[in-house]
């Protein structure tokens, strides 16, 4: 038990030391990525200036899926090894993942209007990402839907694992339902089909969003840990006052 406690304590001590560096790198990445994507990159010959939306749309969409995958792995670890940090990591990830998913939907919509002539279409990719957004919301609701928080987290973990089925559907949606959204142009078996001058700033922004996720995750894990401790302290106080009353009577 002591060993187990030592792990979160050591984890958060390490996290506190890493966090400032992470935020520094996020700031640097944003500075480089934004100037590159918004100023240096030439307007696309077909899409004009709207191509700049790609530098936030695509990284948001990558993170929407990456965060969910991390959440599913953390939930699996929480279920199998009952590691308290894994549970906290999964719960802490969900709002961040939902935020990235929301960003990818909105920026996609704002890109779709000038280029496709519509804000929304029930296309395979868009619909499956919208479902992912609802899965995040449902997970967050489930975590807090039970009297006993441990039970809520466990049931939410199972839900997160089942929900992971949406990830391959999103990935292959552009091939299965070839309706509106273009197919993958970066992560391909035959290498990226996107111009290198456009790809580099995209990778910078992708890495920055990745670091942003880790920085926010550490912050939210701290907050979730504080919630667990707060609950335990309240329980301890309650138990103590009950014992005192029993002794007094």
């Amino acid at each position, binding site marked *: *038990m002591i060993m187990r406690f030592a792990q979160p304590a050591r984890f958060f001590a390490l996290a506190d030391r890493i966090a400032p560096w992470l935020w520094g790198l996020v700031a640097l990445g944003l500075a480089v990525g934004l100037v590159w994507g918004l100023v240096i990159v030439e307007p696309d010959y077909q899409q004009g*200036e709207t191509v700049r939306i790609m530098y936030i749309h695509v990284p948001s969409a990558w993170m929407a899926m990456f965060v969910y995958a991390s959440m599913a792995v953390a939930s699996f670890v929480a279920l199998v090894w009952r590691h308290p940090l894994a549970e906290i990591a999964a719960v802490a990830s969900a*709002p961040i993942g939902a935020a990235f998913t929301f960003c990818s939907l909105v920026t996609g919509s704002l890109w779709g209007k000038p280029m496709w002539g519509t804000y929304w279409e029930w296309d395979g990719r868009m619909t499956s990402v919208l479902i992912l957004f609802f899965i995040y919301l449902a997970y967050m609701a489930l975590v807090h839907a039970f009297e006993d928080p*441990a039970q809520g987290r466990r049931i939410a973990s199972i839900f997160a694992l089942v929900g992971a089925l949406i990830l391959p559907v999103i990935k292959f949606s552009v091939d299965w339902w070839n309706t509106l959204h273009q197919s993958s142009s970066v992560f391909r078996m035959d290498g990226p089909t996107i111009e290198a001058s456009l790809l580099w700033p995209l990778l910078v922004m992708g890495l920055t969003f990745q670091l942003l996720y880790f920085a926010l995750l550490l912050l939210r894990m701290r907050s979730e840990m504080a919630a*667990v401790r*707060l609950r335990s302290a309240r329980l301890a106080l309650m138990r103590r006052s009950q014992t005192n009353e029993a002794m007094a009577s």
Partner: protein
Amino acid sequence: MADFFAMGGYGSYVWGSYIVVALVMGGIFVWSVKELKSRQAALDRLKAQDKSLESEAASVGIAQTENQDGGAA
């Protein structure tokens, strides 16, 4: 400079996208910091109220979740 903001006539779409992402990601940061601070403050208040919680709350923290999990505590 005006050209930069106009974005070839697509300014509202391009800047709209960037503003939404900035607001959402900035919002989640601010919310998380506030949430952490308020939970930390509540925990500190409880500890001030009852000095003996100092060590207990810290150690109970994880043990509690393990017990509830039915784990091998």
